[in-house]
């Protein structure tokens, strides 16, 4: 039997009410204009129906009315301007994740979602998050373009191969909600979905600590740092040091300055010659094809952990 169905989706994030209010405003405008047009057509259609087969065409036809034309040009213009600024306001405010957001890493691949928390806990097609805490997803894809969409949070963002995109939200309702891949990605596209579990902060803590070896992403990154011989240059002064690097500006050999963020670190590992740090020779080989997206994220976490005094364990 078909399930009972709701007409509006649940709201479970701080963003959702703002989006919904705007949605209702547009719906009100739409219903008003649709009703206006329909009623006018219906009224004219009945009132001015042709009453006999040989009724002559009407004489003295009104074919122009500039004030009327101006009115129905200007009123829609005002309304769409309101829509635009209202929407842009929400969009821009929502574009920047808060500084203190908890980071979680998401890797999309045909056809599953791989999620990794900072403390090294991994999950597949599921995302456990604490309620009332801003969460920032750093996302990338191993193959084609995907999209991470959580309807109850009213957000989505494409997940692209070979670059990071971010999406953030603050859940405010405990519960279990769908998330979907919302960019067609091949055969298993419609199976590439899972559940977001919004938990109380205590439950989340418990969940996060259960069944982990205590090896955080940064720890794993440190292992890679030794294993792949990064240390032979970056630990000896032959290459730029990592301590205190993350989030700081870096002067490049071509005079430009970039901020050492996730994307910069990723690009430096995969395309070392693209951005050479000023004062160092371009001798680093590429690690393309040797490191997985997950390992790159772990190395990034390690470098990030060197940036602050204490290791970021991913828990607030």
């Amino acid at each position, binding site marked *: 039997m078909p399930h009972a169905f709701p007409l509006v989706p649940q709201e479970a994030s701080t963003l959702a009410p703002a989006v919904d209010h705007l949605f209702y405003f547009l719906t009100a405008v739409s219903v008003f204009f649709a009703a206006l047009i329909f009623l006018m057509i219906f009224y004219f259609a009945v009132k001015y129906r042709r009453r006999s087969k040989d009724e002559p065409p009407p004489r003295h036809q009104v074919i122009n009315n500039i004030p009327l034309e101006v009115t129905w040009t200007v009123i829609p213009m005002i309304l769409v301007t309101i829509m635009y600024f209202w929407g842009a306001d929400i969009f821009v405010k929502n574009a920047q994740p808060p500084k203190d957001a908890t980071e979680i890493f998401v890797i999309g691949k045909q056809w599953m979602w791989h999620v990794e928390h900072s403390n090294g806990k991994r999950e597949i097609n599921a995302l456990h998050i604490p309620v009332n805490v801003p969460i920032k997803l750093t996302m990338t894809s191993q193959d084609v373009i995907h999209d991470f969409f959580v309807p109850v949070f009213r957000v989505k963002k494409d997940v692209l191969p070979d670059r990071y995109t971010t999406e953030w939200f603050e859940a405010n309702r405990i519960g279990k909600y769908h998330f979907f891949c919302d960019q067609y990605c091949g055969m298993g596209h419609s199976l590439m979905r899972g559940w977001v579990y919004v938990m109380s902060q205590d439950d989340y803590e418990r969940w996060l600590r259960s069944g982990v070896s205590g090896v955080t992403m940064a720890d794993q990154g440190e292992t890679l740092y030794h294993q792949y011989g990064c240390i032979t240059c970056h630990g000896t002064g032959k290459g730029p040091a990592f301590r205190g690097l993350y989030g700081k500006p870096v002067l490049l050999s071509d005079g430009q300055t970039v901020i050492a963020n996730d994307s910069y670190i990723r690009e430096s590992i995969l*395309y070392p*010659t*693209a951005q050479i740090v000023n004062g160092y020779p*371009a001798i680093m080989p590429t690690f393309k094809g040797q490191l997985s997206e997950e390992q790159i994220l772990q190395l990034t976490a390690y470098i990030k952990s060197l940036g602050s005094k204490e290791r970021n364990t991913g828990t607030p």
Partner: protein
Amino acid sequence: MPNSHAIVAEQFDDREQQHEAASLGMWIFLGTEIMFFGGLFAGYTVYRNLYTTAFEAGSHLLNAKIGALNTAVLICSSLTMALAVHAAQTGKRKRLMGFLVSTMVLGGVFLYIKFILEWLHEYRDGLAPGLHFTYSGPQASHVALFFCFYFLMTGVHALHMIVGEGIMTVLLIMAWRGKFSERSHNHIEIAGLYWHFIDIVWIFLFPLLYLLGAHF
């Protein structure tokens, strides 16, 4: 199909209308061509900005001298084409045929230089992505991207040249059979527009591919 004596096709009222329609048609066609090449130019520009060093390195691997020579050849062919149009307008059949032949020969020289002296050379040097690419300097994959655009853009241009040569051949046969006169030379003028257009595309391609960022 209008018979060969009727200068004006049946859907037109007079020669002037036919002439205007044909010219406008060609101009619009050239507009679509601009959009066609425009897509390629846009892609090229985007990547050039992303990977400036690699694209400059790629550019440096091209032979700018031969490219310049080819530019000169093509400009000469535009000149002979313009003279052919003039000859057609003044009804000089011999001159018209002579200039058409010179235009074709110059076009042929251009294609010879392009294919034999450049493409074949670049292929042998291992600069043809997807077929034979052995470049191993820094950012090899981005240099490959440059060559990809290089072959694509010059290839599409060369394709237009080959079509142009075909058109010239038809015109030459028509001229030989005496189909053109002072009153009837629409085809020549329209073909001239097309030929100049290809020329202009090359004038943009040459600096973009060979010269920008090249080291002299």
